[in-house]
């Protein structure tokens, strides 16, 4: 597994998402209230870039006419065919056991620690790191 420093944390504020490339792999990075998640930026259906999708909440219905809304901002909707994926797990909403966007490990590291590993980072503060 390699470590890829992809962006300063400030580039992806809470609620935002960003397309980056890590070792040639396109990754959509999401910030959910300070927690970072990564999904392969290609929908498993036809390949739309999830980073171009909108982020919505989870709408569920126990029976016709009854709706429950939860988990605002935690579901990404593909910009092409509208398939919905759980940002935390990559699981699709319509068939979670069969269809999944690939989850990619993302975390945040401090510039000083990175510099200690002799990585050339441009500024002070935290960086988003993708593990692939």
């Amino acid at each position, binding site marked *: *597994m*390699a470590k890829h420093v992809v962006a300063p944390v400030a580039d992806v504020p809470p609620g935002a998402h960003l397309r980056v490339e890590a070792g040639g792999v396109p990754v959509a990075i999401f910030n959910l209230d300070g927690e970072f998640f990564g999904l392969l930026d290609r929908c498993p259906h036809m390949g739309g870039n999830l*980073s171009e999708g909108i982020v919505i909440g989870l709408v569920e219905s126990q029976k016709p006419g009854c709706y429950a809304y939860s988990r605002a901002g935690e579901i990404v909707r593909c910009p092409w065919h509208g398939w919905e994926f759980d940002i935390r797990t990559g699981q699709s909403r319509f068939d979670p056991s069969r269809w999944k966007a690939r989850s990619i490990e993302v975390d945040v590291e401090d510039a000083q620690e990175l510099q200690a590993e002799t*990585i050339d980072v441009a500024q002070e503060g935290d960086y988003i790191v993708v593990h692939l």
Partner: protein
Amino acid sequence: MTIETIQKPETAAPAKQALAIADCDIHPSPKSVEKEVFPFLSKHWQEYYNTYGTLLRQPYQNGPAYPKGQPDAARRDAYVPDGGKPGTDLAFMQKQHLDPYNVQLGVLNPLKSGQGLQNPDFAGALCSAVNDWQIAEWTSKDARLKGSVCLPYEDAALSVKEIEKRAGDPNFIQSFMLIRTADPMGNRRYWPIYEAAAEAGLPLAVHAFGFGGASITGSGWPSYYIEDMVGHSQSAQNVVASMVLEGVFERSPKLKLVIVEAGFAWAPSLAWRLDRIWAQNRLELPHVTRPPSEIMREHVWYTTQPFEEPDRRGHLKDTFEWIGWDRLLFATDYPHWDFDDPSRIPLPPADEATRNAFYLQNARDLYGV
């Protein structure tokens, strides 16, 4: 551990594949009707457009009868970087679609022309202007692109005039109607259109949607967009049944019908039903001298987007074989949200020549380009 520092990603690119394709359903739109289409519209109709607008023959006059899966029915990544609407900029279409997908032949199907307008003369003038606009903004600038002759089809005489005007013009490779007409498409008031199209050698493409004014199902207006979407295959079946049973293809034996964006897997079951009922009712339809399935196989082509995606691919293989691999045409529907990626559709297994024909040669053969 390998470590890599920040890279600036390129703009999102489609999956790599070099297979040459024909895209038989591309939707261009004007950046501005006033700037791009008005030059081809008389002063009279410009003022009419500005005064009365383009109300369609349908209820829900403030917009489409149903919502769309995404805004502007478009892929969210298809907006032009300068903020323009999807499908309005040739350079961006080349960069995002035509070049990376290796589109060798792109068939333009403008959805906003004069089709569906209630004023017949205005419909005719606007269709004709949009046809001129296809040449000015698209086909004259990129030789891969070919236009569709938009017809004001509720008026057969005006439509025939437009077909005759465009016949032999290499900018156009088909004539173009929408699937939801005011009367069933085999109705004899449309026959002059079919005769003229056959005479001009312009296959008749019939695209999903339309503004006939009747409800989109036989039992009224359903509640949801999904029902609008699935309704296109029902409308297409009405088109095929009506044209076959009214004797359109007996009267215009050179007519080629292309069903666009309305599915295709329904064709075998429709043909089985038609054949069965036809055999039992020869007295009613003596002018239909052959089984309907035979007429369909000879006269009907289908674009495949939105592709059928059954769990078992074998089902699709049977469907392809029944319809005929040579009758299916690849299309993406760019820039619309239900875009099909040529490398990602679950195409049934076939030898290379058959696959290549499906992706490109069938369209070249049909259109003669």
